[in-house]
């Protein structure tokens, strides 16, 4: 399955406070509304300017900080098709897979703001069409592939009546 879109480039250490700010804590039970402010404190324009299907591209330690699942959830609700980074913070990575947002580890130094990307989850590739460069992303652990393929953790549990990760 192939996804295409524009890259929105962010730096290192994009925290969950930058993704889903604490001052908007009261919107946690209104995720569609909170999604309108996604990444606002990192880039005030992002939520308004991005198009469904675009990619969020970070550096190191993307998603550091809180365990708030709201962070990857609102990135997905905003229409982002995948998050790419050189490395992810642990809880964000696991949450991202749980909510069905692919989190892909690759050399994002080769991606700049506005580059057109084509991501193939099956092939494991990220093609930077603007720069004519093909990157490979690190394979997900098998347990996480199962969860992602089932559509996220809740769908996995409902489908199998419990965990089925072998």
């Amino acid at each position, binding site marked *: 399955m192939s996804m295409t879109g524009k890259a929105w480039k962010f730096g290192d250490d994009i*925290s969950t406070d930058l993704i889903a*700010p604490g001052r908007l804590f009261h919107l946690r039970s209104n995720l569609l509304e909170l999604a309108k402010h996604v990444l606002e404190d990192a880039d005030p324009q992002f939520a308004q300017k991005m198009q469904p299907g675009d990619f969020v591209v970070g550096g190191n330690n993307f998603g550091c900080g809180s365990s708030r699942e709201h962070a990857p959830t609102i990135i997905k609700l905003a229409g982002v098709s995948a998050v790419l980074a050189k490395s992810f913070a642990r809880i964000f990575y696991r949450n991202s897979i749980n909510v069905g947002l692919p989190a892909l580890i690759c050399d994002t130094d080769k991606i700049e703001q506005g580059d057109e990307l084509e991501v193939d989850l099956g092939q494991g590739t990220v093609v930077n069409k603007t720069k004519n460069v093909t990157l490979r992303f690190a394979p997900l652990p098998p347990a996480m592939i199962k969860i992602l393929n089932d559509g996220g953790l809740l769908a996995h549990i409902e489908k199998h009546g419990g965990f089925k990760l072998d």
Partner: protein
Amino acid sequence: MGKTLAEKIIGSHASKEVTAGEIALVSVDVCLTQDGTGPLAIRQLQKINLEKAANPKRTILFLDHAAPSPRRELSNDHITIRKFTEKTGACLSEVGEGVCHQIITESYLNPGDILIGADSHTCTGGALSAFATGMGSTDVAVGIALGKTWLRVPETFKVEVNGKFQPGVYPKDLILHLIGMIGADGATYKALEFCGETIEKMSMSGRLTLSNMAVEAGAKAGLIASDETTKKFLQAQGRGSKFRKISVDKDAVYERVIRIDASELVPVVAFPHTVDNVKPIHDAKGVKIDQVFVGTCTNGRLEDLRVVVDLIKGRKKHPKTRMIVVPASKAVYLDAIKAGYIRELVEFGASILAPGCGPCVGVHEGILGDGEACLATMNRNFKGRMGNPEGFIYLSSPATAAATAIKGEIADPREFFAKKKPVKRTPIKAKKRKR
């Protein structure tokens, strides 16, 4: 082959012995959510008709991040949480009871347990020799309903600390020093295992500070072997019979060993906007501070308040610096009242708030104004953390916070100790930093 604490505890909850790198399906002993993450967990269970708790008496839903609630939407979230506990028999920790990680260790968690919590600082429980780790709402929701989760067994970094702290240096300085050294992602996916003479002699309160901040180096858990200190702590909480000896095997395999001489450490401060932006006090002195905040799961315990009270005795708070103090739990608050600390803090000029997270999460009770700086005993200083991306957060020990409240700018607590001149271990020129 010998096992690390992580391998031991996870193995005892899986159907087999485990080694770092393996995936294990484990039974879960304790689950927690807080009021920011609980409502989403509940809605997820409602979506798949699984609104139940496998272990209701060890499933606790806390109201602490927005407690008392500052807004209608959050009050409605609190109602959602209360209804869930009524329906399932799970435990509710009400507004004013205190911070989840403090109460979990006071009242629920035991050595050898697996605790999963919908809050990143769930790793605090590692000080009680439990495998305690933070996860998202859906993971914890499934843990609540099914009593199970899956874990990748982490590799372990051994953090061996020997030597005695110099006066004015505390466990908070140690953990900030470590994070500054290895970086905010230096231990991502790993378990930290704290050991050595300094740890053995450390109070449970100090150990909780260390484990609490393991996640700020990216770690999955921050574990400490159980011992007499653990036993005495459990006895004091009325859970002495729950003590178990959880110790490390001598031939356990570690990915990395980090050795620290505690006697070499100085007070440190984490500068905005990352926890690993740690500088020695010499480099921090003189930064003007508008608000000092003492509290949180990191440093909101009786021992922390005692350090503050001892330092401020007979001194006055700086007129241009506000001070907020939040006891981490009702039990801490009551003990602090009995000890006379609350009176001393109020007379000094501090505002005492209801036990809970207070201004830590930027939801209420101490949000910063544009350009303002706060020095806090909390665990995270990301941009916008305290409710205003135009604010600046510095992290320190309670002693450094108390000294700062007196001077109105970041100050070296050692200058307030009688007689002995502070020993300068690192010859660093003090610089005035621009914000």
